[in-house]
């Protein structure tokens, strides 16, 4: 008996072992692994997002320029769909029965038990029709959302567009964006996305095993109310923006106007433009494709992505830097025989002025004068130290913003070309001097800048020595927050005393009988400016004008580029004058020379497309091309460009050939 009594321990031992096995497994699934917990959450918890209204944008006079408009989506939860009147739904939506089936199948493939889009942005009529018969379609529901509306139908490139997020955006946002969300993809919509989008609301709802909603989770403790996006106040003056777009009709080019005292951008015209309402809603795809197909490339934001040689409009900067440098003094004169000889290379002048001083040199845009100025700067420490003086000069000019991004609050800003001395060392070794780079004296050749940079230069001259970072948004939210960086003065390194002589020259350019822009004189307003005629190896020269007004206490600085417009005085300057006058007086008085806004608006300067059967090469448009002086190119070719340089050239060309907005990296998130 005793022996069998011991079997008690075996039985009890077995009980204990089994109990420990059970506890061990429980310990694993309850405490060690959290898989079960998250599965339980996903079993019962559905997050329903509430979309906030996107922030509105006002212009500087508090006129609404970007607002929201309600649209309705038809949503479906495929699992809750019961057999329904397919024809009825098809009729209400004005689609075919086939489409209904297809869409349902697609929604099912996406998720059988989550609410997914059945039809986006149904028309108001469809919505009204559906409202009455909705009860016949279990599993379907309508969802209202807002989309963007741009009442003035202008400044498409400036505002950019809003589009449904792609997988890339979702991944980068680290959990903020969910499929079906919208995000600013370009323009202000993109750069101010974080402010405009607001905060999504979340309603946590519990669902039972039959997928019937059982009410809110934890009494709504974890629910979040949607918060509307911040309202933005733009620095734009919609009056001159509209005037600018009108004047630039049928022309390729750009206008940038800046308030010098604040750096606020008053007008930001990119031509050809498009109606931003085209890139809203259902027709986005169709309209976007037609924009892409347009040979004049309206999707390019020319004020910041168009890179033009500044041409003669570079001369005032040249003069100011030379004065600061002591290379010349305000009274220095040179002799102009109608050309300047840089070694064997002849730089032509449009006129033969004989002995000419600075003020007149600016007003007359004398190439010879500025070639001499440049020569003086580069050779002031002797012929042997040209490289060093060039480097110093480069540094001085860079302070004006050439060759670098100004950091405007728009994505995809370009910096233009402005080579350092090293660049020329690579190409020419030690054998280069002022004659090699003389074209820069007159803003040609290997120097390009964006219209924004040119307007900014004008703002700096108008301020007599400094600029504020140009920006498009001057107030964020109800408190009108201004970014700190926008109130910092950036000095260009030229003392105030050197400005009057240059400004006098610029005044004469517009207001004297010998000025290059004398046709653009504005009644009762002293506008100072400088014309530029940018050599264009592909066709008619580009017309450039930069200026500011009034001469004392300037209120507006402006840069206008009209591609294939010929002389600066013929298109860019008159267009500038209209905009300046409109901005300063809110009206345009009749001009003695008979120039009218209407006449300019009607002029067509679009370059002819060479061969309509062939695809138009993007190289046709100089705004897209990085210009190289032909002579320089030949030298380069003969010297065998290093592979690195070659690669760079190819790369830039490739970029130019595919100017798709989506592919470009974010350059500036400010």
């Amino acid at each position, binding site marked *: 008996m005793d022996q069998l009594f011991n079997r008690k321990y075996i*039985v009890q031992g077995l009980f204990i072992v*089994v109990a420990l096995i059970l506890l061990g497994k429980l310990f694993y699934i309850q405490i060690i692994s959290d898989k079960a917990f998250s599965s339980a959450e996903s*079993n019962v918890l559905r997050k329903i997002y509430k979309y906030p209204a996107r922030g509105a944008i006002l212009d500087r006079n508090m006129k609404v320029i970007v607002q929201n408009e309600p649209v309705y989506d038809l949503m479906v939860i495929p699992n809750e769909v019961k057999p329904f009147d397919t024809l009825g739904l098809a009729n209400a939506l004005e689609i075919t029965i086939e489409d209904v089936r297809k869409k349902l199948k697609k929604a099912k493939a996406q998720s059988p038990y989550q609410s997914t889009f059945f039809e986006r942005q149904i028309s108001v009529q469809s919505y009204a029709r559906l409202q009455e018969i909705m009860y016949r379609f279990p599993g379907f529901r309508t969802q209202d959302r807002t989309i963007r509306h741009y009442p003035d139908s202008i400044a498409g490139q400036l505002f950019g567009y809003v589009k449904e997020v792609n997988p890339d955006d979702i991944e980068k946002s680290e959990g903020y964006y969910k499929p079906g969300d919208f995000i600013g993809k370009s323009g202000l919509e993109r750069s101010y996305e974080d402010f405009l989008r607001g905060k999504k609301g979340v309603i946590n709802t519990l669902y039972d095993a039959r997928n019937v909603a059982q009410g809110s989770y934890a009494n709504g403790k974890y629910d979040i109310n949607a918060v509307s996006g911040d309202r933005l106040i733009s620095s734009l003056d919609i009056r001159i923006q509209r005037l600018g777009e009108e004047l630039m009709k049928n022309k390729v080019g750009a206008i940038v106007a800046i308030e010098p005292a604040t750096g606020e951008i008053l007008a930001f015209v990119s031509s050809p433009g498009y109606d931003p309402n085209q890139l809203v809603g259902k027709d986005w795809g169709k309209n976007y494709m037609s924009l892409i197909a347009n040979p004049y490339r309206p999707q390019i934001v020319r004020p910041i992505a168009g890179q033009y040689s500044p041409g003669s409009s570079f001369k005032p900067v040249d003069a100011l830097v030379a004065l600061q440098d002591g290379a010349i003094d305000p009274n220095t004169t040179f002799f102009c025989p109608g050309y300047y000889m840089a070694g064997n290379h002849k730089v032509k002048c449009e006129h033969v002025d004989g002995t000419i001083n600075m003020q007149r040199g600016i007003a007359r845009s004398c190439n010879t004068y500025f070639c001499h100025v440049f020569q003086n700067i580069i050779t002031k420490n002797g012929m042997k130290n040209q490289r060093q003086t060039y480097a110093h000069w480069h540094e001085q000019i860079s302070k004006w913003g050439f060759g670098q991004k100004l950091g405007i609050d728009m994505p995809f800003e370009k910096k233009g070309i402005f080579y350092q001395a090293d660049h020329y060392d690579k190409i020419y070794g030690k054998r280069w001097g002022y004659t090699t780079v003389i074209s820069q004296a007159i803003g040609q050749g290997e120097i390009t800048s964006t219209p924004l940079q040119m307007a900014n230069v004008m703002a700096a001259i108008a301020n007599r020595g400094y600029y504020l970072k140009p920006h498009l948004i001057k107030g964020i939210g109800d408190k009108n927050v201004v970014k700190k960086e926008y109130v910092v003065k950036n000095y260009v390194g030229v003392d105030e005393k050197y400005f009057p002589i240059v400004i006098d020259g610029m005044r004469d350019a517009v207001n004297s009988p010998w000025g290059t822009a004398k046709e653009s004189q504005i009644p009762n307003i002293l506008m100072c400016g400088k014309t530029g005629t940018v050599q264009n190896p592909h066709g008619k020269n580009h017309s450039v004008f930069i200026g500011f007004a009034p001469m004392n206490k300037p209120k507006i600085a402006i840069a206008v580029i009209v591609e294939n417009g010929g002389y600066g005085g013929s298109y860019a300057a008159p267009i500038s004058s209209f905009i300046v006058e409109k901005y300063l007086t809110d009206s345009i008085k009749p001009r003695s020379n008979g120039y009218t806004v209407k006449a300019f608006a009607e002029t067509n300067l679009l370059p002819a497309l060479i061969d309509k059967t062939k695809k138009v090469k993007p190289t046709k448009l100089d705004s897209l091309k990085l210009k190289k002086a032909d002579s320089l190119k030949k030298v380069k070719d003969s010297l065998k460009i290093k592979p690195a340089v070659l690669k760079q050239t190819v790369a830039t060309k490739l970029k130019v050939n595919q100017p798709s907005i989506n592919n470009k990296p974010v350059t500036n998130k400010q």
Partner: protein
Amino acid sequence: MIQQQGNRFFFNVDWITVLIYIALCTVGFINVYASIYNPDKATGFDFASSYGKQLIYVITGVILGLSILLFDGRLFNVFAPFIYGATLFLLVVVLFVGRNVGGNQAWIPIGSFRLQPSEFAKFGTALLLARYVSTFNPKFRDIKSIVIAGLIVLAPLLLIMLQPDTGSALVFLAFMFPLYREGLSGYFLLIFLGMIVLFVADFLVPTYILILILTTIGGLFIYNNRRKQKIIISTILVTIIAIAYLFVVKIAYEKVLAPHQRSRIELMLGLKADNKGAGYNVIQSQIAIGSGQLTGRGFLQGTQTKYGYVPAQSTDFIFSTIGEEWGFVGCSVVIGLYMFLLLRLINLAERQRSTFSRVYGYSVACIFFFHVFINIGMTIGIIPVIGIPLPFISYGGSSLWSFTILLFIFLKLDSNRMGFI
């Protein structure tokens, strides 16, 4: 003496066990309430609802248990063959008049009430087995006694298999342990264990590798005992039987088991994954239990429980409610209560003077053990889904009452341990 007289019926009753019984019934009621609770329809207490019925079952169960204590313990010994016979009869009857619920012909409808004979067959069998062992005092060294004991157990088992209710039938294997305690060779347990191991291994490992392993073990064993002819022969026999078993199992598995049983086994062994079909119960049950974490979501806070994600929530899968709402702590308490009960029952059984009481006590303990192990093991996925209730906790009158009868008959026998049976 006077006190003993006045308390004759409840004299010497092990009240600690009764307390554990009441504790488990309370746990059961609370969790049945929680698994049925619907916040939208939370009105007053409703006796027509499942938890209302469960409360009635618990109260009547306690009354039933206490009234069993009023019987003379000797009656159970005397009437054991009749009780056994009656339950067998009911098991036969149910095959003809039974109502088919969930594929099993297991219930006899009596008015609005349904009787499940298989639940009552357990204590009938336990009583007769105890009677047999106490009367003939076999040591299970001879084939005859093993066959008789085997028949006592197998008769109800096979009848239940015919319903077919495999889960309830499996519980009858629990009688192996009382027989073991009374002298059945431990080899039977080892053989049984070996059969289970080989069964599982047969699915996970290719058969030829198993044959290789078995012959290697056999060969080594023979080599170690190479001078003992008897051992060599029996080893060879065992090895051959084991190998034959492998093939028989494969064939029997395909031919005998129903498809749903096969898929449950395959799921448990991880041979197939099926989140929506057969595997749904187990996965949802594990999710519910796992989401309880250390301390649980709290009473009535279990989302999986409340929103019907676990099927058979109040009956076979009641443990998932405990796991979700009370967490690891609650599970440990419940398992602890069971272990306390089981170990105490064994200890009580061992203190009996009469063999009848001891065998019966072991039977009760081991039946409870099987139910607890299989039921909880099933809800956490270490045993294939076998639909048997968790004693005292699962919703249902038949099971609660039969467990109560099982337990209280033993408590009555125990209270008579000083007397004679």
